[in-house]
């Protein structure tokens, strides 16, 4: 857990240090992709707590989810349904909260707070 928190902090620091700025055109894509990435990580944490974690599944899920999320936004832009990104946002947002809830419950049971 500590290693994971450290990794997140390191990522943030790296982002701050490298001073990257996303071009305005790519903002929506990256936004949804970030949401998907968060969802994938939470899913990974959940799986590790359930002891069903498989790194192949995690990595492939991470990549396909983020890419697909961005792709959905792209398609929405192209076919004139700009709001299509909402679908991705809702889907991933729901999953994030779902995963969060599961993780919470698993942690509680692991720590014996139930």
């Amino acid at each position, binding site marked *: 857990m500590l290693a994971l928190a450290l990794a997140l902090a390191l990522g943030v620091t790296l982002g701050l240090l490298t001073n990257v700025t996303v071009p305005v055109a790519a903002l929506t894509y990256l936004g949804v992709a*970030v949401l998907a*990435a968060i969802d994938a990580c939470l899913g990974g944490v959940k799986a590790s707590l359930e002891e069903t974690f498989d790194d192949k599944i995690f*990595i492939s899920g991470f990549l396909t989810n983020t890419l697909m999320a961005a792709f959905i936004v792209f398609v929405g832009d192209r076919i004139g349904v700009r709001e299509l990104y909402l679908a991705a946002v809702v889907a991933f947002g729901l999953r994030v909260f779902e995963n969060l809830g599961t993780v919470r419950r698993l942690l509680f049971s692991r720590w014996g707070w139930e």
Partner: protein
Amino acid sequence: MGPHPRPTPKDALIHLREESAKRLSASERLVEQSFNQARLVTSLAVGLLLVGFLLVAQMRGQATFSGSLERQSDQNLAIIIQQLTAENNVLRTEVARLQMRLLEAGQATEDRTQLLSEAARELNSVSMMAGLEAAAGPGIVVTITDPERVLLPQDFVRVVHELRGGGAEAIAINAIRVTATSGFSGGGGRIELDGTTLARDYEVIALGNQNNLAQALELPGGLKTTLVTFPGVTVQVAAADELSVPAGSAVGYSFGSPVEDE
């Protein structure tokens, strides 16, 4: 194996082998577990690292985007366009005005350089005329002897006058430059030029056309003829090619001041 109360060495060996095999598989499982754990942590850590990085990038981008025009409402955009157009017009006028000024300034500079070179030329001739600079060139030497001391200052005024009439560009008497403000004075046989008493056997040097200068003095009935009628006075005029006169001293205005004539 039979009713042996003590295990045979063979049994012991078998037991040992099974035991070690069990231990081996247990440790193998442990290794595998920790390996899996490491893989888990590593992949999750990489994922989270990416998430953190992307989050920051996204926030940065969003921050710049919020300040950009794309976030403005149509009404605001119309106002902004209006303002920018007005500003543009002002700036365009300014550009035109500045270009005009630039052109004028260029013209003025040209005029000024021309004026300056003209002024320099003028200054040159004026300072030469005023005798502020030493001069050299062809001219004549007039040697006047006056053992009886009969010559008066006005005689020298006449000499200078005649020489000027003959086109003298620079005149010096006994190595003292005669300038526009020079004056002769004296009395009782003493001749002073600008306060300096001139030694006898006056040597007048005049730069200019040698023929004209000599003629100015030697005309029949001219100055030379007049001077030599005085007792003891002799006048000799000789042309020379390499003469030089010293610079006179500049006189500044103490009482008067230049009046600018527009």
